[in-house]
């Protein structure tokens, strides 16, 4: 794992960020974050909490871990443990910030927002697009791929595009405004035509296809 970090259990504070995006947008799939304040001079006990995945962890489960750890610590000397693969908090914060910027004043627009017959940009389709994006990024970041945060672009037909444009690759994911319609994906790796990706696929399968393609080309 690339994201190993040593922390002090006493100083863990689990919290959910309050409404990380605008008030119009829910925080489905938003992970718990961990605050920690390292205290020097304490003995380290390595306990691997392997397999913690942001989307699966919740406050109850994490409390159980702490409960299990605490009795073995006797008088409370044992405070430190290691969490693997869960430290991309800065990236998550940046992701929330960018999504808030992208959505500002756009998500929630009704039909005909340009006076020429455009379709509404709904909260539901925004939530679908950003939920998919979060799943892709969590997967990649968790596995040590340092992928940048893409743009999430509204369309005149009510769809959203998730668009990466980097030196290494370009990828556009067009998400329909209705979840039962197919997601369109087109990607290219710079200078390598054999890695061209062009598919239409169910929403539920899109994350897997995209994340695997990116792992392959990066």
């Amino acid at each position: 794992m690339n994201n190993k970090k040593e922390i002090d259990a006493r100083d863990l504070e689990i919290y959910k960020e309050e409404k990380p995006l605008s008030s119009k947008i829910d925080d489905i799939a938003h992970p718990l974050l961990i605050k920690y304040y390292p205290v020097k001079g304490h003995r380290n006990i390595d306990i691997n909490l392997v397999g913690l995945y942001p989307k699966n962890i919740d406050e109850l489960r994490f409390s159980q871990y702490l409960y299990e750890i605490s009795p073995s610590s006797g008088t409370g000397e044992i405070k430190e443990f290691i969490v693997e693969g869960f430290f991309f908090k800065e990236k998550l914060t940046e992701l929330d910030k960018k999504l808030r910027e992208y959505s500002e004043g756009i998500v929630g627009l009704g039909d005909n927002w340009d006076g020429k017959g455009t379709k509404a940009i709904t909260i539901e389709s925004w939530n679908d697009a950003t939920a998919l994006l979060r799943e892709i990024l969590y997967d990649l970041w968790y596995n040590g791929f340092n992928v940048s945060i893409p743009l999430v672009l509204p369309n005149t037909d009510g769809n959203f595009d998730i668009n990466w444009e980097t030196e290494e690759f370009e990828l556009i994911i067009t998400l329909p405004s209705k979840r039962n319609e197919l997601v369109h994906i087109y990607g290219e790796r710079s200078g390598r035509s054999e890695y061209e990706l062009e598919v239409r696929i169910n929403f539920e399968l899109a994350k897997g296809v995209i994340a695997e393609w990116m792992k392959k080309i990066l």
Partner: protein
Amino acid sequence: MDEEDPLSWNIEPYENFLNSHFFYRAVHKFLWKNWPRTDKIYSNFFSLDQAINGLSVDWSKYATTEFTVNSRPVPKLYVNGIVKINVGKIKIVIEEKILPISIKHDPIKEPPLNRAHTLLEGISKINKAKLKLKLSKIAQWAPNMMPIKEQV
């Protein structure tokens, strides 16, 4: 902008679209106002127009960028910018990428009149993501038609 009787406007053939010509397209602020760079062209500028089953553009043979911006409900650069796409470059994209796109002159003979109106047809559910990306690579903001972000 045309004094002729609109009913006399013919639909012009593909060969009349010269490589030196341009297509113009208005892009509303909700498609660019939140992005980091206003000078850049993004893929969402080329999403399909629902009602006409194609990508709607104005042909430079009969339109200017001023005509295109003035055809918008709010003809101001803080609401609509105008992108231009070179016809010759579109033809190259069509040929190199073997995209089933056709350029069809489609003059609008009822108010609001538009002799320049042209459709890029053949954009389908299969190829639209790819085409939007390709168009974003060859389009530019037209001179003096780059949008202006409102100061908050």
